[in-house]
């Protein structure tokens, strides 16, 4: 087994015993179980789950990721004093956090679905998209969290910044778009709005599922425009590739900062 896999393995050992991860898994289990019990309409359940996960996953990923790196600073120093490459340690820490977080989300959602005995298999495509978008959110927001805590020595500032960034993407961004629409309603804004869409990974993930479900009205103004502008296939390809860019860019910037950092 190579060193990267070993670092990841021990980190998964550590995180999977953490109280926070257990609460996180339980949250998905209970939410998923609750929604399925209330409704026989699986697509509706999936839309509700999507709305919840698109708030919760970015929040937990970015906050947990930031705190994790701050709390383990001395452990990072210990590992760096071993004959290990910095790049390997960086990806080890990152994947060691992303894998358990993504795993507990997928497990938490899928167990109640499978046990419910309802016709979830008919909607397997949507479920796969739900998982894909949730995993993308984990990947993206953990890498933003890593970037923040590598760049900021001050943990209060770092944590504040994490919460602020989450708030921006999850809440303020859509509000800002609505304000723009309100102010400039006399102008043709559609194309510009589509441009704005790519700057918010949460919106991108939402579009991914909604396009698949054909319920454009549920995704707000930007989503409605998006579906009108692109047909489903192109929309999905475009949103997936933008999510990939969102996953790679902060991670690589974080890596280059990590390589240069003084510990």
């Amino acid at each position, binding site marked *: 087994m190579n060193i990267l896999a070993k670092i990841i393995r021990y980190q998964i*050992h550590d995180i999977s015993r953490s109280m926070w991860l257990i609460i996180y898994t339980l949250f998905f289990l209970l939410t998923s179980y609750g929604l399925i019990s209330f409704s026989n309409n699986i697509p509706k359940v999936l839309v509700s789950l999507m709305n919840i996960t698109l708030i919760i996953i970015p929040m937990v990923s970015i906050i947990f990721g930031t705190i994790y790196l701050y709390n383990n600073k001395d452990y990072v120093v210990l590992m760096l004093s071993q004959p290990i490459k910095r790049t390997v340690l960086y990806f080890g820490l990152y994947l060691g956090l992303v894998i358990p977080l993504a795993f507990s989300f997928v497990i938490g959602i899928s167990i109640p679905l499978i046990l419910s005995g309802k016709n979830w298999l008919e909607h397997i495509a949507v479920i796969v998209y739900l998982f894909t978008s949730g995993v993308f959110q984990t990947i993206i927001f953990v890498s933003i969290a890593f970037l923040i805590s590598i760049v900021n020595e001050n943990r209060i500032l770092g944590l504040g910044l994490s919460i602020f960034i989450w708030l921006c993407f999850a809440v303020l961004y859509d509000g800002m778009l609505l304000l723009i629409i309100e102010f400039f309603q006399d102008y043709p804004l559609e194309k510009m709005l589509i441009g704005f869409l790519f700057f918010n990974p949460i919106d991108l993930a939402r579009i991914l599922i909604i396009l698949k479900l054909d319920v454009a009205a549920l995704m707000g103004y930007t989503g409605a425009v998006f579906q009108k502008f692109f047909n489903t296939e192109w929309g999905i390809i475009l949103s997936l590739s933008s999510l990939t860019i969102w996953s790679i860019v902060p991670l690589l910037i974080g890596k280059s900062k990590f390589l*240069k950092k003084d510990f």
Partner: protein
Amino acid sequence: MIEISNLSKNFGALEAIKNLSVKIQQGSITYLVGPNASGKTTLIKSILGLVKPSSGSITINKERLNGNHEYRSKIGYMPQVASFPDNLAVQEIFSMIKNLREGFVDYDEELINLFKLEKEKNKRLKNLSGGTKQKVNAAIAFLFNPEILILDEPTAGLDPVSSSILKDKIVSENKRGKTIIFTSHILSELEELAKEVIFLLEGQIRFNGTIEELINSTSKHNLERAIASIMKGD
């Protein structure tokens, strides 16, 4: 041999180390002393590659440090503060550290036995006291029989019994030819352990030599007063 030449390190406007040059001979025990923020930890961390120098060079056994990592297999490092992932057990930490260096078999587990860490092996690290964590930290530094041992305040937080175990270990490893660098604020440790002294002040070397030379150079009678007089800048 560790050779540091013209090393400087700035943290923004702050100059932590200014144009510092020093040679540390193989098999010596060197005591790195200086007031707070004099650059001791920065110097140690530069040798470990944790801090990237602004200018100058460090070579260890003729190998120049340039972001490489293999050389660190020759160094055992005991940081000032030990911290490990909260939810791992003591034995998992040891097996992890061992796992990271495949092919190494000649472990030095003397400290694990002397500190009686065996009975703590199933405890999670978050439940350990600060002193026990420090013992784990020390045991890891010595685990791979490294040629060079860098100990940052090694006895801080240890009880007198453990502290003397560690000091005995330092002396016996030095007799076997290991190079040892350590920092400490406890002056009596210096007289007991070290032969060489490097005195840092504001990122520069104020004194480098043996203890006797240090005492003679300040015309004081004992070590504590000699160091105090250098600190005051007499």
